[in-house]
């Protein structure tokens, strides 16, 4: 015997079936939000945990992005600062600079006279008043040597440093951008750490959402039983929980976005001031629209995964016990 009577349901056209399908989803979508707002404290708590868990890897990622951007312009060439002895006069320095420019592997040589150095220092360091107390300029003449990008290997830089250091007029040779190379290699390590952290925190979000949904399912056991008893399918019973997970993920991602963007906004000015001291116009980078949407999408996806795992697992086990 087949199941002809079971199939006896109201026949609908495909257009109406589709409309019913969407209106049902829309109802559940809104309905599950309503349920979250009925327990505002618990829901906000969950959302806060998710938000912080998502904000952490995003901020670390932004830190690396910003650090790379800030040091990026120095990455290829290496700058060497040459400090002359205080009794060396400016024309002599300029003569030496002129000769140096003819040497292969040198892309630029800039002379910073002591007067100009003092003026810049006064302007950017904030020690203006203290400097006024000095009777004479304590700064030496300085020469900034930039290597050509194809002569920036450590061996090239070392030989250049030795060559400059042997000049009798030179007091000190300092490689300015050595720290950039080190810093960049540290950033590379950090990227690995961040990828790992991101993975762990993503799993954390799935677990948080899953656990919240699990408690939700247990709390609404009676309702689930009744719904199954009057013919609610597994998909029907599961749907509000999946939307619950989506709301948690969406809320958490929105919170993470707010945390990260306001942190960037708050730090933009102080960072800009530091950058100016280094003579850079560097501007702190936040999340752009695409990245923000990516974050929100990731939150929704993680929420959905967490609720899906728990709903599929627990709802199957709940059967009417009349």
């Amino acid at each position, binding site marked *: *015997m087949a*199941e*002809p*009577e*079971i*199939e*006896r*349901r*109201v026949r609908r056209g495909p257009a109406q*079936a589709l409309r*019913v*399908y969407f*209106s*049902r989803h829309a*109802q559940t979508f809104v309905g599950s939000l309503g349920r979250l707002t009925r327990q505002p404290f618990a829901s906000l708590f969950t959302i806060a945990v998710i938000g912080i868990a998502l904000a952490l890897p995003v901020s670390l990622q932004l830190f690396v992005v910003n650090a790379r951007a800030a040091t990026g312009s120095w990455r290829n060439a290496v700058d060497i600062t040459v400090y002359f002895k205080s009794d060396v006069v400016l024309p002599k320095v300029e003569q030496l600079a002129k000769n140096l420019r003819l040497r292969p592997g040198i892309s630029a040589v800039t002379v910073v006279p002591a007067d100009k150095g003092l003026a810049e220092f006064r302007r950017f360091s904030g020690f203006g008043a203290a400097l006024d107390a000095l009777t004479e300029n304590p700064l030496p003449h300085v020469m900034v040597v930039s290597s050509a990008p194809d002569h920036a290997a450590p061996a090239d830089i070392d030989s250049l440093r030795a060559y400059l250091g042997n000049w009798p007029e030179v007091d000190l040779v300092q490689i300015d951008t050595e720290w950039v190379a080190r810093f960049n290699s540290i950033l590379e390590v950090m990227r690995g750490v961040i990828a790992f952290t991101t993975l762990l925190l993503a799993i954390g979000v799935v677990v948080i959402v899953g656990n919240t949904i699990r408690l939700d399912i247990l709390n609404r056991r*009676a*309702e689930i*039983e*009744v*719904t*199954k*008893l*009057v*013919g*609610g*399918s*597994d998909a*029907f019973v599961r749907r509000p929980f999946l939307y619950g997970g989506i709301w948690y993920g969406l809320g958490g991602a929105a919170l993470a976005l707010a945390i990260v963007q306001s942190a960037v906004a708050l730090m933009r000015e102080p960072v800009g001031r530091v950058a100016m001291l280094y003579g850079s116009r560097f501007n702190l980078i936040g999340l752009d629209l695409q990245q923000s949407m990516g974050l929100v999408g990731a939150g929704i996806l993680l929420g959905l995964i967490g609720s899906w795992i728990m709903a599929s697992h627990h709802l199957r086990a709940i*059967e*009417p*016990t*009349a």
Partner: protein
Amino acid sequence: MISFERVYKRYPNGREALTDVSFGLASGEMAFLTGHSGAGKSTILRLVALIDRPTRGQVTVNHANTNTVRRRRVPAFRRDVGVVFQDHKLLNDRPVLDNVGLPLVIAGMTRREIDKRVRAALDQVGLLGKEQLLPQELSTGEQQRVGIARAVVSKPPVLIADEPTGNLDPDLAREVMRLFRRFNEVGVTILIATHDFHLVDEFGVRRIVLEGGRLTSDSGGASHG
């Protein structure tokens, strides 16, 4: 419409709840299922609602053999069987409207259709105008009628009830029974489990008696349907 053929039911704990039970209800028939508690009444209703499956034998409801209904098809099967419980099984945090309308939401009806049909069902059980009340705001008898409205709102061809008058005083019980009779008059096949023998006598419909999991007497039609 409901048919039991040599049905045995043994629960995992080893208790044999039904032993070789056979009976049938024709389409549009109404019967009482009586017996002391533990006689197997609830087990029979569980098998009809496909909450459980028989250990041996065949249960056929709405021309579907419950042994062959796959898990995925169980919800559709249940939509054609209205169930009324002694403890109503209402959702206490939802108004009457949502409780009664639940089967229609599941069936995918529009809000307008649902409102209309819920009102019609509430009218039939005499509760029109109480749509927005919560179950706790109603008396026990009213709650039971909300349960009945939910069971019939999607117009299932089969209606089963487990001790629907168990918590009601005799007047209310009689009223609820009359309600079932009215649904039966419009063609619904009804099986009611009860141990209220007075009421059964009073209504004089077919009576199926269970004792210790065996069918001991059946006052009505041998017609298997």
